[in-house]
């Protein structure tokens, strides 16, 4: 569904992505892991053309995103919902207005239809009681949940999550993980999750990709991933107390 073909990107003086090849299949949840600063967010941004590759290209459903402009790009972006690291809510709009924004600006729905949809999505993330609150008045975890509600309000086929659980307490993290799983299960959306939290990655991912040194150094199912022989993967696993015998199942997930 999404294919990165040998994507290379220089940022500043550093070659952040150095020939990334990656395919996301329809209906799967692909988790991209890796230490911070390796270019996971940069990879996500290429999928929706917030960044353009220096070399290589990005294809979504047969359309070349990395070359699309204007209404063609708009059409491709409509397939996506993106949850940004901090939620990226507009500070001067309240929770309800933030979620309603894409509908108000981009669809011809009536105010009643918009309200119904906003309520439906907010209750999905457990925030229907906080419609009137402003982003500054709610916690980081709640902001992310509202950001998720906004991301899915137009029923996208693909959802990109940038560190959906980082900086959250374990309970909120688990809530978000469950949301990601249920969106895949019930609505059949394709998801790409960026995370450096392996426990969460292993529990929600159908496949795990490890980004290191500018390319994908491992791509496997969770079961195979924990048994990987790749040095970087091993180091990364051990840093999070996950050993070869698959003990990760005991750890909090």
């Amino acid at each position: 569904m999404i294919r990165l073909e040998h994507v290379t990107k220089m940022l500043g003086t550093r070659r952040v992505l150095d020939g990334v090849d990656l395919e996301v299949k329809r209906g799967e949840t692909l988790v991209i892991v890796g230490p911070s600063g390796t270019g996971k967010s940069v990879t996500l941004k290429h999928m929706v053309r917030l960044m353009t590759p220096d070399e290589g290209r990005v294809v979504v459903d047969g359309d070349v995103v990395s070359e699309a402009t204007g209404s063609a790009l708009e059409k491709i972006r409509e397939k996506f919902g993106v949850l940004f690291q901090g939620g990226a809510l507009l500070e001067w709009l309240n929770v309800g207005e933030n979620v309603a924004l894409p509908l108000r600006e981009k669809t011809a729905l009536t105010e009643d239809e918009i309200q119904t949809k906003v309520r439906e999505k907010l209750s999905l993330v457990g925030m229907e009681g906080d419609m009137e609150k402003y982003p500054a008045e709610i916690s980081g975890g709640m902001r992310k949940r509202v950001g998720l509600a906004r991301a899915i309000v137009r029923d996208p086929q693909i959802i990109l999550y940038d560190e959906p659980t980082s900086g959250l307490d374990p309970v909120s993290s688990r809530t978000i993980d469950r949301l990601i799983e249920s969106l895949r299960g019930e609505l059949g959306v394709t998801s790409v999750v960026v995370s450096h939290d392996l426990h969460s990655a292993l529990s929600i991912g159908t496949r795990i990709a490890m980004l290191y040194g500018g390319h994908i150094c491992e791509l496997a199912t969770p079961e195979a991933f924990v048994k990987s022989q790749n040095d970087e993967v091993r180091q990364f696993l051990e840093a999070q107390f996950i050993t070869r015998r698959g003990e990760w199942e005991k750890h909090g997930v």
Partner: protein
Amino acid sequence: MGFCREAGRALILLFEAVVCLSFMFKRRSRREIIQQMFICGIKSLGVITVVATFTGMILALQTGIEMRRFGQEVFIGAAVMVSMLREMGPFMTGLILAASVGSAVAAQMGTMVVSEEIAALELMSINPVRFLVMPRLVAMAVMTPLLSFYSCVMGVVGGGIVGLTQLGVPWSAYIDNATRYAMNKDLFVGMLKAFLFGVIIVITACHQGFATTQGAVGVGNATRRTVIMSFLSILIVGYFITRLFYV
């Protein structure tokens, strides 16, 4: 050199914002524009009142002291009125708005870049220029001339007070003198200047804000550069407008 490049980029942003003006009369935009008018206009009213009044008082005092030697104190009316209308009104208003509204807009846009709100808007295919820049541009283009006119009125009042209390010029003679020598041209050129200053401030602020990199430090830089760039542009543009109309 850097200044010219930045100015060029800002001009491109201005062009994009002007293209978006066609959305100005949509109901949602209208509400946003009115809100922005309130934020940038009404909230600056207090400081503009004080600055303009004292500017007029200083002008009256300085010229009055000189003119008293020739027994022509009543001419402070013309002096205050003409210099407020032509130069000081728009200039003072411009500087105040650059320091208050300009820096606030730059900080807001910069923060929105850093927290990925601008990226989120782009993904929703909501053009940030239409959604954020256009309403602020319209608001400032309307409010700066109005505030500038208001500051002229306050300056003339301030001058009159000094005339009355310090120089013994009766109020009616002062006003009579002030209105006799001021021409419509002075008013229009002043308003034109204020209009341009308003546009310069918004576009500089939005451009600098959007160009923010590197988190909170970047937001600080964007704010600082906005104030410096607007001050410089206001001085330079102000000089050339004066030269164009009065030389």
